[in-house]
């Protein structure tokens, strides 16, 4: 009895505090936040027309696309962005042979130590090395990029909502501001050293537009249009973020198939064991 009475008093007291001191002022000031007149940020990502080969429960890598994406990374992105969780040996998953991977790694320069003097130096990469950062350290990265550090790209497609399409959208987002929006906010301008991108969360991004038609030349005859390069790099970065993506889904089918069978057997044994116990339906 005491507990119930105490409970009622505490409950009413707490509710009164909540309603009088928190809800009442809130309601008095109640006004939906006004949307700014000019709001160019496109939160909804766009996707390539035909989508990506690895989407859906049975999707697999388009290895040729991943190779093209790697080429875009190597020839464009790598100038500023590291890929520190990926090793050259991982490229074997993109259907490069061991010898090709060895040659590919050797084409990169990685930090090393001079075995004679112990001084820091550089050496050609080995398959076991990870992709090197283009900058010595964060200070150098900031200094070279208008005070913005180019982020590591290994996990980019998992570190953003709907990440694969986000990378694609960002690559495609360098457009001119909508004249109608601009008319509403004539004072809006993109600051010096930043670039307007409607898919970047604060509209102005420190990265200059990189993908221009024929920025790379694909050896497999694919047209190096901005759309194709954007899709290829988005696919490649999906692989770097989750190399096990396809293996995971394929394992999943096997596991779920087994579990469906096992659960069916479990259901039958449950029904058999209980057969005598349940009353007959009238």
């Amino acid at each position, binding site marked *: 009895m005491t507990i119930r009475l105490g409970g009622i008093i505490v*409950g009413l007291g707490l509710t009164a505090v*909540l309603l009088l001191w*928190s809800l009442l002022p809130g309601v008095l000031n109640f006004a939906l936040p006004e949307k700014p007149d000019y709001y160019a940020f496109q939160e909804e990502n766009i996707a390539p027309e035909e989508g990506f080969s690895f989407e859906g*429960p049975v999707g697999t890598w388009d290895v040729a696309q991943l190779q093209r994406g790697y080429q875009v990374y190597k020839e464009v992105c790598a100038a500023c962005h590291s890929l520190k969780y990926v090793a050259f040996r991982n490229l074997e998953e993109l259907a490069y042979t061991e010898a090709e991977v060895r040659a590919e790694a050797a084409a990169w320069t990685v930090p090393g130590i001079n075995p004679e003097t112990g001084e820091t130096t550089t050496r050609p990469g080995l398959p076991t090395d990870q992709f090197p950062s283009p900058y010595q350290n964060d200070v150098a990265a900031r200094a070279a990029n208008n005070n913005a550090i180019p982020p590591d790209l290994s996990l980019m497609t998992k570190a953003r909502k709907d990440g694969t399409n986000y990378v694609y959208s960002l690559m495609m987002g360098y457009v001119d501001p909508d004249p109608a929006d601009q008319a509403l906010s004539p004072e809006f301008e993109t600051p010096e050293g930043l670039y307007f991108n409607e898919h970047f969360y604060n509209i102005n991004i420190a990265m200059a537009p990189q993908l221009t038609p024929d920025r790379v030349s694909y050896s497999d005859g694919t047209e190096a249009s901005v759309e194709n390069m954007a899709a290829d790099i988005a696919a490649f970065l999906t692989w770097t973020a*989750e190399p096990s993506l396809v293996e*995971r889904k394929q394992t*999943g089918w096997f596991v779920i198939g087994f579990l469906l069978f096992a659960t069916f057997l479990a259901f039958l044994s449950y029904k058999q064991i*209980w057969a005598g116990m349940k009353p007959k339906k009238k």
Partner: protein
Amino acid sequence: MSFAWAKQYEPKTPFTKWMDEKLPLPRLVYSAVGAGYPVPRNLNYMWNFGVLAGFCLVLQIVTGVVLAMHYASNTEVAFAQTEHIMRNVSYGWMMRYAHANGASFFFIVIYLHIFRGFYFSSYKAPREMIWLLGVVIFLLMMATAFMGYVLPWGQMSFWGAKVITGLFGAIPLVGETLQTWLVGGFAPNDSTLNRFFSLHFLLPFVIAGVVILHIWALHIPGSSNPTGVEVKKESDTVPFHPYYTSKDGFGLGVFLILFTFMVFFLPNTLGHPDNYIEANPLSTPAHIVPEWYFLPFYAILRAFTGDLALFGVTLVPAKLLGVIGMFGSILVWFFLPWLDKSPVRSGNYRPLFKKFFWFGLVPTMIILTICGGLPAEEPYVVLSQIATAYYFLHFLVILPIVSQIEIPKPLPFSITEAVLGKDDDGAAQPAE
């Protein structure tokens, strides 16, 4: 323990006879979860979740121990080490996704288990101790899950740790000292990560210990059942094995199908993308949100937006009110056995209680979960304030009053009657 007609373990081979004399472990298992534990014959699928919760605990411990073999609790390397597990350890991705989604599924199971308890009043005498131990397990789970989320040392790990440890700073006088002591510094750092890892490894075994007490306490009165009528005679029960082992086996299969679907096809859906960015104390994420299973309590924390003040004097600051509200929202469960005094247990026979459960408590929890994940903007703040108010009213005011004024529906004479539609009351039951 339990009922007079419970079957006793009978060792048959010389070895089991010898074992039974020296260490009657098979006898213990037989009486606890074997044919020697009589269980009401009318349990529905809501009674599967106890066994499932036990399975989740084992799953988390097994995957967690394997992950711990490859992890390093040092802020310099923790994030990279997690990626090492994902990329270089054989099936490391599967272990980590199973562990992360396993935590979510553990909470789904435990919430269903708790709400089963609410609806069927499983907390009522003679089962108060089972309920109290259950709330202790839930609190331990929350602590364990929170510290586990810090270990990958992503952005949400760091900022979640900062927000939650910051709550201790709201305690008057000693708060800030306490917070600095708990964290081992002024903000989450290497000391924090190390002690969280240590405790994250320890607490599951503490949980396992309390689970043993929980099951021990359960075996004294025996399991409850959907009618809420206590077991009267042997025909009301069936042996746990094979009847409920087979039913739980089927339930486990269904659970595993849903669980593996998430692990293999949507492993990051319940997580947050920001946690794939390495922790950066200098860059605050736009929205700091806890894992989904904490959202209702996070919404209650944030519902208290105003200082309790009279004539311009702040008596209790809003932050402290929020902390009291959040911890109070779980502590109130400890008092449930004494707040709800209706002699009828099952919600099926309590028309008024049933309405408040389905149209009051359940939608309130859903609103709180949704609002907890949204930014602190109108109208979500007002919504979570109303929901928080109802939450406390439900447990502290509505339940005691309903239990006084409600006229329950007539109960069946026995479980046998509830199942078969008739019970030859009092007449000697012929042995089956």
